[in-house]
């Protein structure tokens, strides 16, 4: 188990519990009373810490190394799943996954950013940072879903599109832009869910849908707090301040009407009980897809355009003096 810095009280209790178990094993004397006492304390502490997470702590939870990633959820919620590969132009991007799956008897196209579960796999998945071919692969699969009239669910979890030399040569900007444009016009329902990190255009590249949801311990912003700190504060050290300033949590974005809903996580975060999280996610996906089915394709596209057209805050000057002033 990996504990985040703010979880150190829990870490201490877990250690205590493990010690008791060792004593029990060696001495043969039952310690069950004491162990269950500690269990209760762990639960209480978890509840206390997780009900008052700061923005920075929530970001830490979203990046927890044991947090479930796209393929875990997809395989859990689907009765059967066939993964599909490649963008048909350049190569298969391991940081972007997708395929058809069966959810409660209905076929759904799942697309997601994919991070690796261990050191080796993290590299293999390029830390969840897609190249242009990843966005083009995603678009190919979305068009395939549209052709067979199947709804699309995208799972967003990326620290950003990959800022590499070849990514630029192959048109990272164009690939993302194309997805934004094409996703607006998809005739089938599109449900987008931030399951971890939602950084910038890299996240938005699979993020245009009829509904946008976020799991409780995630973030979504124009830039990561670290990069924001380095640009605006000219140092990496102000990431917590930057995190607060960016207001990137589900609560913030729900308040600003940028997202449509927040999906509750188990107490202690998705990583503390991945199965429970996946069950909740399955129910949520089912509920929203049922709802979205009711629209005609024309209504759906119109609503999608209206949804994004409405986002923005500004002031409109009324008088001539105001305008010239």
């Amino acid at each position, binding site marked *: 188990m990996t504990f985040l810095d703010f979880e150190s009280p829990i870490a201490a209790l877990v250690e205590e519990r493990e010690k008791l178990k060792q004593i029990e094993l060696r001495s043969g004397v039952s310690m069950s009373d004491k162990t269950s006492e500690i269990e209760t304390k762990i639960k209480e502490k978890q509840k206390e810490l997780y009900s008052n997470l700061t923005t920075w702590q929530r970001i830490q939870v979203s990046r927890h190394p044991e947090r479930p990633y796209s393929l875990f959820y997809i395989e859990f919620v689907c009765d059967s799943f066939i993964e599909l590969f490649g963008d048909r132009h350049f190569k298969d991007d391991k940081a972007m996954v997708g395929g058809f799956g069966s959810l409660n008897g209905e076929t759904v196209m799942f697309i997601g950013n994919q991070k690796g579960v261990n050191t080796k796999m993290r590299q293999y998945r390029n830390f969840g940072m897609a190249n242009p071919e990843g966005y083009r692969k995603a678009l190919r699969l979305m068009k395939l879903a549209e052709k067979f009239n199947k709804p699309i669910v995208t799972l967003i979890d990326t620290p950003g599109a990959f800022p590499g030399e070849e990514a630029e040569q192959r048109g990272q900007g*164009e690939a993302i832009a194309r997805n*934004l*444009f094409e996703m607006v016009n998809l005739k089938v329902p599109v449900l987008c869910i931030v399951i971890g990190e939602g950084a910038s255009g890299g996240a938005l590249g699979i993020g*245009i849908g009829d509904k946008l949801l976020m799991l409780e311990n995630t973030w979504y*912003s124009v830039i990561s707090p670290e990069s924001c700190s380095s640009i*605006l504060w000219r140092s990496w050290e102000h990431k917590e301040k930057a995190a607060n*300033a960016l207001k990137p949590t589900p609560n913030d974005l729900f308040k600003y009407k940028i997202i449509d809903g927040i999906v509750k996580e188990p107490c202690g975060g998705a990583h503390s009980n991945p199965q429970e999280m996946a069950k909740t996610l399955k129910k949520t996906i089912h509920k929203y897809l049922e709802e979205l089915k009711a629209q005609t394709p024309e209504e759906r596209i119109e609503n999608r355009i209206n949804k994004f057209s409405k986002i923005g805050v*500004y002031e*409109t000057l009324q008088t001539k003096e105001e305008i010239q002033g």
Partner: protein
Amino acid sequence: MSWWKRIRKGVETSTSEKKEAPDGVWHQCTNCKKASLVTEMKAHAYTCPLCNHHEKIDADDYFDLIFDKSIWEEKFSNLVPVDTLEFADLKPYKQRIHEATVNSGLKEAMRVGYGKAGGENLTIAAMDFRFIGGSMGSVVGEKIAFAIDWAIENKSPLLIISKSGGARMQESAFSLMQMAKTSAKLTQLANAKLPYISLLTNPTTGGVTASFAMLGDFNIAEPGALIGFAGPRVIEETIKKKLPEGFQTSEFQLENGFLDFIVDRKQLRDKIITLLDLLKN
């Protein structure tokens, strides 16, 4: 304020005024460092007569260059930014807005002009780098949305001139969602079968590249402009080596297949008129 306007006694020009630089004033090219007469530079559409370097110019300069007889009408100039998130870094966003407004005489980093080019209606949305680095916040996105509605209503082609460091961090998710908004609105322009020319100028990066700037029916650029998604510094930090000479220039983008052509600013107006004319028949 731009160099030739500073030379002109630092007075902000309105559309009715003509930009006449006083005779005998020299400007040093930011590229070749050689001096040229301002009048001569102006005759060269603010490019260097010696090395053809394209100096940064403002939104209204493009309007003057492209519209017939430099006659145009400004649209949607009454939209101004607000600080909904109460964002503060080393400076509060409110103060940044105030300073940008005072220093540039602009209300935002985007201006919309409407007029005729070659006798035909044309809507131009041009970014202005002087206002917080041409960054895209809610107003920039909204002005593009209005410009698209206007173009559809008036059956006019749309030219968007990009010059931007990307999305504006101080408006966080609102800025990010302008990428979605502008792309969504462009689908309506496409459905109306109206031409959209995207002109990328120095620099065009980040969320602007990854949305409307790359979505033109025609993506064109001025020579030597920096065009990319990630900034060169970020890429160099990621790959831990120096980028080759000419990386992410207009010429690089043309070579890699992301631009239709590169256009010298002196030919910009003619080329746009010719291109739009070809689509009419």
